């Protein structure tokens, strides 16, 4: 498995070999610096820490500046850990650069990003409830959730709504993983990954790209 940090550039479409138009998302991924190597002896688990996109040292807190300085790198804006589960790979060294070429033989990738925030959303938008009729006597309840509990067995009892009852609330701006995007192409010169389909988050949002865990 491989992992890279990146930034969503935006969506476009390209033609594949059979002449079909494929909707794709362009991700600027890497080069990522290995800013720390964690081992089972020292940290309790095996992982490597990746840093993406340089930031001015004056804009970063001193501990962060010192942390990346150990890897002989400038401070990074986006830092995430990559847990080495299967086998602790020892070939990585502190300060190494990972580029999109790590995905050269990869067919499918998972992309993790932070979805666009929608603010406080009602049940129709947040959970796809049906709402109430527009007319036929409906007044001031067109997008209401309806009854949230009753005395019946499976809906919460005695005026206590069941835990996890779907209601209005904050929607979006949470970590989302979209799985099994086929990797259409990659550009080592410009550090670009072109994946099929939509990826969570806005253009310019940070994301994590990894080899698909369960490719179809």
């Amino acid at each position, binding site marked *: 498995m491989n992992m890279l940090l990146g930034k969503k*550039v*935006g969506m*476009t*479409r*390209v*033609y594949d070999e*059979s*002449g079909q*138009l494929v909707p*794709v998302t*362009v991700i*600027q991924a890497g080069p990522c610096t290995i800013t720390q190597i964690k081992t089972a002896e020292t940290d309790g688990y095996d992982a490597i820490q990746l840093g993406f996109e340089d930031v001015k040292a004056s804009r970063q807190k001193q501990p962060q500046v010192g942390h990346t300085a150990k890897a002989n790198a400038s401070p990074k804006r986006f830092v995430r850990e990559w847990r080495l589960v299967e086998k602790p790979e020892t070939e990585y060294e502190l300060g190494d650069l990972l580029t999109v070429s790590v995905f050269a033989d990869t067919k499918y990738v998972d992309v993790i990003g932070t979805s666009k925030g929608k603010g406080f959303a009602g049940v129709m938008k947040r959970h796809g409830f049906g709402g109430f009729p527009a007319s036929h006597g409906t007044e001031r309840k067109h997008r209401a959730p309806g009854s949230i509990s009753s005395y019946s067995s499976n809906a919460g009892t005695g005026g206590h709504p069941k835990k996890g009852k779907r209601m209005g609330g904050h929607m979006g701006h949470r970590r989302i993983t979209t799985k099994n995007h086929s990797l259409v*192409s990659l*550009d080592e010169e*410009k550090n*670009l990954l*072109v994946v099929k389909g939509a990826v969570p988050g806005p*253009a*310019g949002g940070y994301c994590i790209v990894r080899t698909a865990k369960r490719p179809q």
Partner: protein
Amino acid sequence: MKTILLDHVESASLKKETPHFEIGDTVDVHCRIQEGDKTRTQIFTGTVIARQGRGINESFTVRRIVNNEGVERKFPIHSPNVLDIRPIRSGKARRAKLYFLRERTGKAVKLAHRHSDHTVTK
């Protein structure tokens, strides 16, 4: 930066050069058609009534009359399935979108001929 990178990705799918044709031209569009495992070329002939989009999204609309019934097809210019676009006759058009042709029937659908260097016939 966003557009530069997206253009860069798109450029791999764009054709190096696209044939020159204008609104109002009668064109032969050679399209590749896949039938099972056989491919053949079909020619769609008609008047170019619109051209829209930029870059990889650019397409054009061709209208013709088949059995007294108007048929329009929209072709993406950069599609690998559009093998060739050959303008054969230039028509006189004073606007970019010739949607008014949709209301016309019979002889009125034919645009007045205009001499132009890019069309094959004199």
